[in-house]
């Protein structure tokens, strides 16, 4: 196995070095990737077409919105997959493997208080990241992950069941699904209004403002959808992994 690994690495490495000989220099503005109309269009036209200053957000949620929808689906798939693989439903609970010894957590005043103070701030920040994704780094993914992380923090600080009182399993999944439905909903709405899938331009019929505003607002909408899904699934994955699928007690 070691030999095989080494061989693979050597061959692949050799190939990659071969490829690298022909690369443009690092940071070269005239490299094809930088000078081709594709990236230039995104840089120069994004604002004119969507009125979103953060090009990454605009490309993510609009030009390549189709990709992003599936990116969300990847997350969702992972969540469902992990439930499918690990989750043990009902009474069919096997005893934990004896090597895994989990001590019941004692409430710790410092940790608990810190968390109590921190978590709302984290969540607020997450919301800001989602909402302000148009103008600054951030967006649905980042915000969603941070929001999900706040619940993970809660589960770590207290225990999983406590966190689950706030976000029970079913509700979590519903939230994830709703997130994707929001995203796809924008697509379907544009289908119904006579445009192509995810063509936010035609949404002017239901969103106030001109075409650019429709793009901008729809992007915010889909980012919120993404945030929902990511939040939910991050926590769902954590609960499954940390409780070995039983959803009883975490690590």
């Amino acid at each position, binding site marked *: 196995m070691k030999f095989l690994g080494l061989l693979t690495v050597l061959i692949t490495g050799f*190939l*990659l070095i*071969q*490829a*690298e*000989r*022909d*690369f*443009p220099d690092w940071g070269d503005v005239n*490299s*094809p*990737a*930088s*000078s*081709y*109309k*594709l*990236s230039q*269009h*995104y840089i120069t036209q994004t604002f004119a077409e969507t009125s979103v200053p953060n090009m990454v957000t605009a490309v993510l949620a*609009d*030009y*390549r*919105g*189709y*990709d992003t929808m*599936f*990116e969300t*689906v*990847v997350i*969702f*798939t*992972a969540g*469902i*997959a*992990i*439930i*499918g*693989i690990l*989750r043990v*439903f009902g009474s*069919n609970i096997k005893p934990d493997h004896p090597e895994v010894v989990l001590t019941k957590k004692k409430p710790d005043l410092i940790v608990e208080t810190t968390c109590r103070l921190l978590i709302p701030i984290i969540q607020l920040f997450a919301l800001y990241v989602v909402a302000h994704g148009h103008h600054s780094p951030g967006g649905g993914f980042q915000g969603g992950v941070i929001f999900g992380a706040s619940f993970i923090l809660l589960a770590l600080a207290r225990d999983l069941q406590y966190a689950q009182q706030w976000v029970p399993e*079913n509700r979590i*999944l*519903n939230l994830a*699904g709703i997130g*994707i*439905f929001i995203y*796809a909903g924008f*697509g*379907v709405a544009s*289908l119904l209004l006579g*445009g*192509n*899938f*995810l*063509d*936010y*331009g*035609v949404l002017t019929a239901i969103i106030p403002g001109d075409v650019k505003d429709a793009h901008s607002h729809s992007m915010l909408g889909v980012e919120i959808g993404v945030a929902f899904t990511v939040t939910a699934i991050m926590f769902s994955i954590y609960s499954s992994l940390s409780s070995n699928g039983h959803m009883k007690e975490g690590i």
Partner: protein
Amino acid sequence: MTEQAPILILLFPFLTAIFVALLGAKVPAASWPLTIASLGASICATLTTLIQVLENGTIRYYVGGWAPPFGIELRIDGLNALVAVTVATVAFLGAIYSKDRVESETENKGPQYYALYLLLAAGLLGIVITGDAFNLYVLLEIAALTSYALLAMGNKRATLAAFKYLIMGTIGASFYLLGVGYLYIKTGSLNMVDIQEQLIANGLQDSSTVQVAFIMITVGLWVKMAFFPLHAWLPNSYAFGPTTSSSIMAPLVTKVMIYVMVRMVLTVFGPVYAFEVLDWGNIVVWLAVIAILAGSIGALAQKDLRKMLTFLIIAEVGYMVGGVWLVDETGMTGAIYHIISDAFMTLCVFLFAGIVFAKTGARDIYAVDGLFKKMPITMIGFIVGAFSLIGIPPTAGFFSKWYLIQGGINSGNWEYVIALLISSLVNAVLFFRIIEIAYFGKKPAEGHIHHHGDDHTKISEAPITQLIPLLGTAAIILLIGIFNKDLVAVIQDFLEPFNLVAGIR
């Protein structure tokens, strides 16, 4: 709405998947009908698309209304319209089969199973219809993640195999991603057609980066399609995963990867680059020959029914890879036709293996012991599939071999022709061994231990939800065999502009 058909192909299974996942917790019984309905709708959408393509030529659907290369386009021509119909149909038939088996094989995770199943179907359909190289990667990962999970729902061995698959699959997908990155660094584009235009416009024929991009993409896809030396993940995962999972994955996953390879070779790099600038045709055909022989020998060594079939998949992958690299129009036609016919053939035999497992609880080939008497209808379905894999007219398998061998002779790759013939003969041996056991109803002399023992006599015909897909598949195999001319006409229309080298070298 017909101009929206391309996106609907995907939307039906994809949105239903999420719906099933949510609703499943409350109403598990609704999962199956929803699955069937959405896949049925997806078939309709694929057929609509196919008809449109046949009437009006290539469909270019701009998602989000952005013209490529700025936005993502779905680009549907004769090739992927056909493959999409195949994928949707196989998924549909496999879903029907799942009904009675899911609960027992996946530990009461029906809704999750169906959700993942639909997502897998959606992922594969998405891979087939997309015209964007990076979008393809994302969908590849959806298909891969669902596959891992669907397999890991099986028994111990399947779980380990799923892990192996996860590692290998990630390597494959990452290689693909890296290759796309290399193309991007040299062309600045992600749209498949645009990449090719840029490759030509910028004169990148000799660029080592593009060469390595080609290797990385091809090898990455080879890993994913289990081309011979890279096949290690396949046999155990398909053989020990739930039969329901392998009945969709075995026919589709490898075949869709071959489609992607064809797409990459023809649309992204272009045949001139792939076959003439990089003159590796002979090496790859030799690799394919080795793959065919290795798959056949591997299959001969197996006592486990499904494992034997998985080795046949490896051999069939060799057929198609070799067919593509014959650099011959007929060979390419054969390879593409084989994508379609092999999907149904594999489905047919895997469904049969699933039914046998469901009925007898045994995995080895002696499980079919005396089944001709007990389940004649099932056996008829199986025989059609088996004949097709052997290559007996008028099944689809015969015609794909017909074209492939023709391509092999045309391009002078005799080793490939011989390998095909040997593999046909091995298939004949394998399947007649099974037919013999089923027909003679003799227990093996060595006193092989059966898990089932005396309840053997109670075996009767399979339930209707398992018979319908099996017989449906068998009928399709015969139909695409008998009407292969029309199918091939579509494929040849598609291939015509590529102007592949024809004639005897």
